């Protein structure tokens, strides 16, 4: 499955439409970092509104994408986390280690990026 990475201005937008296999997650992280490097994006928004389940591997991957993106000078915001997913993530014990920025929806995610750059 190819996941499109859209570019609007300095921001990349990735929308996940369904649950990914571990392999697909790895490919996606690779693609995102590649694209950041290529277009010099300042921000990345990963929209997971459609995901009803986020497992620990996915959570860890999102975290490492964010860390790696920071090294490339880009900010990652994960948006659209469902309440049930948020509860699961917290129960999984991601309290301290999860350094990813989060926002309720795409709009708010863009706002955060705008604020960061201002």
């Amino acid at each position, binding site marked *: 499955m190819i996941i499109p990475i859209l570019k609007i201005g300095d921001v990349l937008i990735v929308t996940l439409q369904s649950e990914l296999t571990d392999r697909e997650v790895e490919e996606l992280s690779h693609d995102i970092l590649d694209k950041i490097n290529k277009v010099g994006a300042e921000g990345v928004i990963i929209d997971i509104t459609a995901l009803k389940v986020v497992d620990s591997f996915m959570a860890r991957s999102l975290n490492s994408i964010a860390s790696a993106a920071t090294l490339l000078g880009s900010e990652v915001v994960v948006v659209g986390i469902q309440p049930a997913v*948020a*509860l699961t*993530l*917290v129960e999984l014990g991601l*309290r*301290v280690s999860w350094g990813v920025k*989060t926002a309720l929806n795409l709009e*708010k995610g863009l706002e955060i990026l705008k604020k960061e750059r201002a």
Partner: protein
Amino acid sequence: MVEQRSITRELVLLFEEHEKELIDLWMTKMKQLKLIKGLSDDEREQEFRNIYRASLSAFKTGDYSEVENYTSKIAKRGALQGIPVDEILLSFLKLRDVRLRKLFITYQGDLAKLLEALDCFEKVSNRIFSIFVLALIREREETIHEQQRALLELSTPVLQLRDEALVVPLIGVIDSERASRIVEELLQRIVETQASVVVMDMTGVPIIDTAVANHILKTVQASKLLGAETILTGISPANAQTIVTLGIDLSMIRTRSTLREGIKLMHTMLGLEIRRRDE
């Protein structure tokens, strides 16, 4: 066994025959003791006759289901009309006394027969008494459960204070069941209102231990995942000391001493300014 049955039948006959007399005696005693004043004389007589017959049928048939039905009905009504439990129990015990006396009077010339009758009577009477007490306790327990449920629903309001701000005043002891309700409710409201700041006020929380702190941490973290920052307010000095002593790390949460200070911080975070209108 045949002997036992015949004495039972004898007792039943005795009580049936003297129903009016015994009930009247019972009523008089109750009046002297000033019990069950909540009911009128007619109602009382009706009730007493029902109890009398229900217990008699248990005697006759050895089937206690009628007594069980009746007692649970009484227990419900007692709870409604505010008749104290001790009065209900005392009234029932009085009926037992009245019947016991009747036994003594009837068999006063024949000790062996009296003892036999007592054996039979005590067995049934004690059983009925225990059914009575159980029914009353069950009624109380139901009431307590209902109140707990009501409390649970009442005590987790999530209020919207500004377009993008929620206030959660926590009151009372927080156990894990309440905590998970609070989290769910809060997350739901964050999604609905698109809130970006949540002020959680702990003024009404008497004790903060590791479990409560853990619940709060989880709530804050889950809200954060939905993009809402949490401000914690109203931790009492004693609780603050407990938190430090227990080594709980709340440093990742913004805290303010009072709800007022918390709301000021909330305004700053939202970029709002409150000013008196120039006149």
